[in-house]
């Protein structure tokens, strides 16, 4: 299959030196659809290819970079507000995903846009955190009794909160997978290894290994595949950043076993290798084969993921992209909860979807279930 331009360029950035105007046009459309403009900017600059970018695309890449720089500041500020709101509770607040990358000052935070802030707190503290945030202007985004009950009974997070003035969305997790998921990563172990780089206060972020494991878990078990390529790039960048460290690979594999997150890690490693040409040492490849023997890898999952992880742009659509995302969406729900819970949940969501019209029903349900992708505000 012919890879989308954006994937070709991420793997071999030098290609852009031979690009026509039409190639640039398509590359930028794919990069934008995949939410990878700022990352593309960083990759091209780091490879010294800045001068090879024509003026038109260069404006857009620089603008994306500017937005990223600003959102790093905004995230830091937003975190300062959280800290101010929660400091008297004296509980550890562990940042996840984007906010963690910012506080840990990882290179990846310089090529990424931020939407929500994700924190992990001990389950016993969730109620206090929520109450405190209410007095600081945060409100729940899901007021229906059904949604509240659904989140609180089955999910690893409470319904997202949005700040009434700033509109920032905050996801408060007490675990990284739903309570009903087949995999059972112990949140205590995540909290125990959280780090703050020797800093002071109650603010922490996941340790390096857990950042990678969480990123893979989020992508392969959370059913948000329309930003799949974006998330895969996160995993690739984290791996590239930390892989040079002595003993990194064995430590990563051991931690995956300890956390019961072997399978998402293996998927992550397989697809960053296949799609983004990340080097995976041979003994790790062997370990992967040991852990997931035979037909589990390859064929079916490859067919689904390699389609679903393409950018969400018509130029990258192959027959089956939508079906692949849908199949994996069902799969991720299946991984999260037993079948008897899965069926009513999907049906209920389908009925509340407000879109009517051209989208296939399964895509509408997918969108209905991912409200944050529907509303750019």
């Amino acid at each position, binding site marked *: 299959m012919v890879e989308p331009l954006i994937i070709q360029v991420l793997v071999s950035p030098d290609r852009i030196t031979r690009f026509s105007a039409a190639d640039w046009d398509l590359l930028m459309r794919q990069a934008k659809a995949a939410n990878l403009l700022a990352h593309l900017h960083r990759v091209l600059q780091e490879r010294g290819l800045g001068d090879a970018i024509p003026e038109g695309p260069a404006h857009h890449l620089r603008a994306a970079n500017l937005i990223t720089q600003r959102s790093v*500041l*905004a995230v*830091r*500020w937003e975190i*300062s507000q959280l800290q*101010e709101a929660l400091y008297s509770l004296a509980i550890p607040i562990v940042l996840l995903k984007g906010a963690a990358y910012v506080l840990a000052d990882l290179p990846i935070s310089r090529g990424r846009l931020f939407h929500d802030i994700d924190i992990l707190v001990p389950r016993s503290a969730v109620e206090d955190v929520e109450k405190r945030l209410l007095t600081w202007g945060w409100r729940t985004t899901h007021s229906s009794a059904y949604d509240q009950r659904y989140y609180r009974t089955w999910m690893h997070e409470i319904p997202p909160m949005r700040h009434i003035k700033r509109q920032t969305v905050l996801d408060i997790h007490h675990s990284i997978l739903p309570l009903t998921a087949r995999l059972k990563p112990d949140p205590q172990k995540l909290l125990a290894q959280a780090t703050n780089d020797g800093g002071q206060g109650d603010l922490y972020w996941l340790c390096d290994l857990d950042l990678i494991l969480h990123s893979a878990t989020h992508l392969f078990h959370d059913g948000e595949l329309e930003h799949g390529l974006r998330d895969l790039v996160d995993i690739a960048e984290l791996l590239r950043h930390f892989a040079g460290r002595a003993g990194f690979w064995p430590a990563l594999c051991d931690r995956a076993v300890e956390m019961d997150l072997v399978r998402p890690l293996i998927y992550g490693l397989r697809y960053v290798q296949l799609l983004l040409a990340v080097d995976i040492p041979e003994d790790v490849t062997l370990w992967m084969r040991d852990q997931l023997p035979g037909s589990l890898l390859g064929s079916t999952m490859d067919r689904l993921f390699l389609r679903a992880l393409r950018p969400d742009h018509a130029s990258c659509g192959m027959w089956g992209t939508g079906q692949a995302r849908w199949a994996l969406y069902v799969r991720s729900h299946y991984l999260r909860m037993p079948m008897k819970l899965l069926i009513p949940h999907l049906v209920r969501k389908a009925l509340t979807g407000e879109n009517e019209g051209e989208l296939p029903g399964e895509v509408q349900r997918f969108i209905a279930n991912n409200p944050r992708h529907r509303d750019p505000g």
Partner: protein
Amino acid sequence: MERRWFANAPDQFCWSIWPDEEEAVLFHQGSGDTLMLNPLGEFLLKRLQLERQTPSELTRSAADFFEIDANSELADAVHLSLLTFRSLGLVISDSL
């Protein structure tokens, strides 16, 4: 014990001031807000950009600066300003 206050990211404060105008304009990069400040507000924030201060320290230095009494009226004004700045995310308090 009194809490100590300081500017939230002191390097994120941008000021524009005209000598013949009383109120200063502040842009705070973190919050993205632009604000007009009276001389007391300007003084307090600039002070907190430099170092951590308790409300009583701030009241004393404001009294010195404006050459007025460090009375309860000024202390109240300082207190009120701090609360306002806190709600705007411009200052944070010591959590140690």
